[in-house]
């Protein structure tokens, strides 16, 4: 598809940011005092970072919040009623400066939440999001987007993709109608593209995901899983920072007669995730849970959802307290 490309100067970028924040919630990355990169709503432009490799958490909470009400209820002996959450009241959000890996994750999440029946909590949230992505000009050893079919400058999932020029200005690529409407409403901020090439990070391919998927077909009983997960301590860090992990729990909470049913993030790494009330646990040791995480992303999802469940952001590896490096393991799996 032919897309429009324009040049936007750094100072115009600030004007664009301010203009967008006036009518939307703008969700943008900032570097906190403890070096963690976190997304905040409407931070001052001067705080917004353009040089981060990856934020600590992904941006999936925009469409899949860590806690989300499913409905409010009131319950007493004689009277029960359910009140829906009005999803139409959700504000418009501009996601600013998120990298191509995170943006590609929205489609994967859609394939989980909207296959078969449509989960409106997810899809209504997604409708409200406009993505102004930022191509990566830096990367590190954890990055492996190119091994999952993505790229540091992939436009997948972005409405506009910004790429940095060496002088500090940016190329803006308008990918969707949502993106083009921003150009249409602020044409004065954009100039015609020059010859200058954008600075794009180099991310070397570490494995072929097709080959991994192929190998996994017969790898369920392989000793690989136990050998490579002995050090896994069974926390949920990898799944909670992951842009595509979407497993959730549903719980009730009441105060007097009033209460709510909500869903919250859950993790296949937890021992209690699959525990039956009877005490039987289909995945009773950690190696089985680790296998589930990799199988789900690289075998079950390609099979069922026709999308790979991983975008290669490398967050799970960098967040892991015991250095369970997923790209290293996938590389090894490719060759078992």
């Amino acid at each position, binding site marked *: 598809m032919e897309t429009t490309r324009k040049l936007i100067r750094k100072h115009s970028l600030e004007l664009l940011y301010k203009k967008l924040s006036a009518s939307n919630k703008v969700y943008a990355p900032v570097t906190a005092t403890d070096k963690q990169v976190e997304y905040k709503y409407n931070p001052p432009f001067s705080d917004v970072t353009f040089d981060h490799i990856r934020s600590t958490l992904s941006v999936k909470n925009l469409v899949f919040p860590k806690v989300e009400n*499913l*409905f409010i*209820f009131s*319950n007493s*002996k004689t009277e*029960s*009623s*359910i009140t*829906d*959450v009005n*999803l*139409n009241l959700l504000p418009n959000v501009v996601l600013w400066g998120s990298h191509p890996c995170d943006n590609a994750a929205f489609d994967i999440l859609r394939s*989980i*939440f909207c*296959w*078969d*029946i*449509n*989960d*409106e*909590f997810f899809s*209504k949230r997604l409708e409200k999001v406009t993505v102004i992505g930022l191509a990566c000009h830096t990367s590190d050893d954890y990055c492996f987007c190119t091994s999952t079919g993505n790229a540091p400058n992939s436009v997948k999932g972005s409405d506009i993709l910004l790429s940095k020029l060496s002088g500090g200005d940016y190329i803006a690529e308008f990918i969707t109608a949502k993106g083009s409407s921003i150009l249409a409403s602020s044409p004065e901020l954009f100039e015609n593209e020059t010859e200058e090439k954008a600075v794009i990070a180099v991310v070397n391919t570490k494995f072929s995901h097709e080959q991994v998927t192929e190998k996994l077909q017969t790898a*369920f*009983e392989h000793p690989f899983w136990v050998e490579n997960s002995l050090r896994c301590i069974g926390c949920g860090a990898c799944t909670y920072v992951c842009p595509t992990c*979407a*497993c*959730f*729990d*549903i*719980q*009730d*909470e*009441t105060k007097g007669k009033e*209460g709510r*049913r909500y*869903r919250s993030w*859950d993790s*296949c790494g937890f021992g209690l*995730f*699959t*525990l*039956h*009330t*009877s005490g*039987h646990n*289909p*995945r009773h040791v950690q190696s*089985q849970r680790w296998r*589930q995480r990799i*199988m*789900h992303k690289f*075998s*079950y999802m390609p*099979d*069922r959802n026709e999308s790979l469940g991983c975008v290669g952001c490398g967050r799970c590896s960098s967040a892991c307290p015991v250095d369970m490096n997923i790209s290293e393991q996938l590389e090894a799996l490719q060759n078992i």
Partner: protein
Amino acid sequence: MSENIYKPYLMEIDNIIEETPDVRTFRLKFKNLEEAENFSFKAGQFGEYSVFGEGESTFCVASSPTRKGYIECTFRKAGRVTNALANLEIGDTVGFRGPYGNTFPIEEWEGKNLLYIAGGIALPPMRCVIWNTIDLREKYKDITILYGARTVNDLVYKHELDEWKNRPDIKLITTVDPGGQTPDWKGEIGFVPTVLEKVSPSSDNTIAILCGPPVMIKFTMPVLKKLGFQDKDIFTTLENRMKCGFGKCGRCNVGKVFVCKDGPVFSYEQILELPEEY
């Protein structure tokens, strides 16, 4: 207003039967008549039953789709929700979402003999299909039900067992584990696989439907094979922990198969293909 797929129907408890000290059967009626009209399900499907403030629990619909206007469920007090359910009284409200999952292929079974084998609390998931086929009795040939429990006390649906016992068109065999019998127990004594071997039903033109604890399944399967049943003619249901019921929350999968979407009903042929995660 948008459609909230997590929103349950409000149901009123119409009747409660205390099956055993810790097993109850609820008859539930829709509070909203319009919802009742539009509701339909098939044998084998399940739902999410909720007590507001405690959460949801997954179990099958235990009544037959041929009995309209209500649904029934049978549960054992085990966790937070089932304990809360057990404390409810007639007239109280519960939530119900469903029906979810696939169904027993009863149309394909027409003209065949049916052999139902259940153990303990696993009769409820089968009761739906049993009644469904009994209500369409003329479509099936011999119907045999083999039901075992640990003790006489643990047998559920005692009143219905009596009814089945007295029907000439159904063969019912009940058994209790050795030591679980009472002085006036007239049924068999012994584990389900042993009794099955003793009764030795013919596998000719017969579908076997098997539900029970894993250990019972494990020892019953070889007996069925010995009797000549084909893997494709043996059906069972799988249970895994679930939250959503429609393939999103990500915890009930057995390999790539979602028990909530592709199950809960599986033929043994399908089960053999699955990795051991159930």
